Each structure stands twice: as structure tokens, then as C-alpha cells.
């Protein structure tokens, strides 16, 4: 029913609005403290792996394309391709999370995880000395990493939910539930997926590229 379709689309957009406001709060915290502690943020950013970040950006953008294609296939009642595109999206999403997990694993080993495992600067006093030199306390790098993990963590939670949905939709799509004229759920899932993508689009330069491509890079 048309009215219902419109309701669902509008409802989903409203939901996305709430998501944006929620992430927006974090983005604000980020902006504020980056403005206050530029040196520390640059320093923190140097510990992120730009190349993994770039690959992940690519993966996620690509998954947006495949998701859009899935929506397209649902619209043209192409069951096979719908399922294929959804599966590809799923794989890409999983790849993103996998890469993210690798990054976090490295952070863990290096002791860059605030609250749980934070000893990088204790292990590397020369780094700490550099920070002191630059008038930036180690604790302000800690702040950067706290923000980093909150943002990427919340984003990852959204990815995980999205993955679950994409998987479910692939199965349901296989059963033909979206190619009988009822393609709207796929569209709505698409909206969600794209939003998660958009958030990453902002996270990437904000977190990884603070120190620039040349200074940051392969780990630290």
C-alpha cells in the first residue's frame, strides 16, 4: 500500500536523523578536543594505520555501491542478483569489520587502548618525551584514543547490526520475499547501510589523516 510505503520511508529517514544526532554528539566532542589539543590529536593519529583505513574506506564505499545495486535488483524483481548483491555487501561489510579488528588488535598489542590496556608511552618513553617537548601531555593522547574507540566502536556496532540485517535479508531475498513487489524493506535497509557508510566517510579523514599522509602512516 502506498501510504504504508511512504510511512516506512519517512520513518526510516527520521530514524537516520536520530542516528545523525547521536553521532553528532560524538563528532562535537571530537571537534572540541581536537581544537584544544591539536598536538596530541596529531600524535594519536600517527598511530593509526592510514593504509588499512583507506582500504576500509574503499571497502565501505564499494559496499554502498553493491547495496545500491541490491536495491536496484529488488526493484527490478531480479531475485538472483538481489541475493548476490546482498551477499557481496555482506562480505564487504565483514571485511571491513575484519580489517578493523586487525587494527584494534595492533592497538591492543601496542597498549593503545584506554582503560583496558594503555601502556604505550610507558614502554616508549622517548615518545612521551617528544610529547612533553611539544607541550602535550600523554593524557591528552589518551583522550584522542578514547574518542577514537568510542567513535569507531559505535560505528562498528552499527556495522554489526547492519551485517545481521543484510544476512537475514539475503536469506529472505532468496525465499523471494522482496521480489514479489515488496522491495521496500531492501530500500530501507539500503538507507541504513548508506548512513553507516556516510559516518565512516567523516570518520576516516577526521581520525586517520590528522597528521597528513606523509607523517602518519604505517602504524607509527
Amino acid at each position: 500500500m502506498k501510504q504504508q510505503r511512504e510511512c516506512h520511508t519517512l520513518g526510516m529517514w527520521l530514524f537516520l536523523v536520530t542516528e545523525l544526532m547521536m553521532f553528532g554528539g560524538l563528532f562535537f566532542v571530537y571537534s572540541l578536543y581536537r581544537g584544544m589539543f591539536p598536538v596530541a590529536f596529531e600524535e594519536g593519529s600517527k598511530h593509526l594505520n592510514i593504509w588499512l583505513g583507506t582500504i576500509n574506506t574503499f571497502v565501505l564505499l564499494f559496499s554502498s555501491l553493491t547495496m545500491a545495486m541490491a536495491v536496484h535488483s529488488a526493484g527490478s524483481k531480479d531475485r538472483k542478483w538481489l541475493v548476490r548483491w546482498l551477499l557481496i555487501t555482506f562480505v564487504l561489510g565483514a571485511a571491513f569489520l575484519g580489517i578493523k579488528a586487525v587494527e584494534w588488535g595492533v592497538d591492543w598489542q601496542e597498549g593503545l587502548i584506554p582503560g583496558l590496556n594503555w601502556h604505550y608511552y610507558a614502554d616508549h618513553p622517548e615518545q612521551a618525551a617528544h610529547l612533553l617537548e611539544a607541550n602535550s601531555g600523554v593524557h591528552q593522547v589518551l583522550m584522542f584514543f578514547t574518542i577514537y574507540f568510542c567513535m569507531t566502536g559505535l560505528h562498528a556496532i552499527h556495522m554489526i547490526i547492519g551485517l545481521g540485517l543484510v544476512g537475514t535479508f539475503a536469506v529472505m531475498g532468496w525465499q523471494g520475499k522482496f521480489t514479489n513487489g515488496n522491495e521496500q524493506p531492501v530500500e530501507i535497509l539500503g538507507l541504513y547501510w548508506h548512513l553507516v557508510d556516510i559516518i565512516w566517510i567523516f570518520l576516516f579523514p577526521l581520525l586517520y589523516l590528522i597528521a597528513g599522509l606523509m607523517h602518519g602512516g604505517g602504524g607509527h
Partner: protein
Amino acid sequence: MASKKSKGQGAQEHGHSHEGGHAHSHAVETHGRDTHGHGHDTHGHDDDHHVMPIKTYLIVFSTLMVLLVVTLLAAIPDLGPWNLPIAMAIAVAKALVVMIWFMHLKFSSPLTRLFAGAAFFWLAILFLLTLSDYISRPWFDVPKL
């Protein structure tokens, strides 16, 4: 209400005769969907959602890829205070591309766009008013100890 964007599948007008001055009363509400109310068979072109050819998607994706490369390139030179605005401008461009084409904002009702815009507007409120505090704190600095 049938004004702006309605794709004009004339059939939709039935019933609207009751609504007299309606069109003038609220601009917010002029979303022009086509209004085939009857069920499933019309979905191929319902809601304008699937008129986009695959080629468009590919073009959109290529644009995103180009922008990604630009993002990286822009991060190479040290542009001082300009690195951040440039990076953000590119990110906004990417986000807009995704929203307009992948998320079909281009074909959505003005109402949907309004809400999408509202989110950014309200975020701007959060940012601007809170920053107005932090930015202006030094203006009033009392001598430190």
C-alpha cells in the same frame, strides 16, 4: 499539493477535491509522489525509485573513488589550517553524493529532504552554540594565577 514534483500520473487527483485551499496551507507537505494506490503491480515505476540506470550507479561510485583519492592527495601537503576544511569539504561532497544518489534523495519528497536537512541544521545548533562558549572563553580571561 500536486504542485511541484509530482510526476503527474493524473490518476492521483481523486479525492483531493475535498481539500480546497490545501495547497496553500503548508509548503512543508508538498511531497509529490505518484499516488497509485493500488497494490503491487505498479511497483516497477512506483516512487521513482528505480528509474536510475546501472550506469548512474557506476558513475556515482567512480566519483566516490575519485573523491577518495582526492582525500588522500589533499592530505599530503601541509596546508596549515587548511587541511581540515579541505578534508571536510571532500567528506561532505562524498556524503552528499551518497545521499543524493544512493539514498535517492534526488527522487525523494521534499518532506524527506526537509528532515534530512533538519538533522544537519540541529547539529549545527549543537556545534555553534556550544562552540560559542568555548571560543569566547579566552575573551574574558581573568589573569591566571
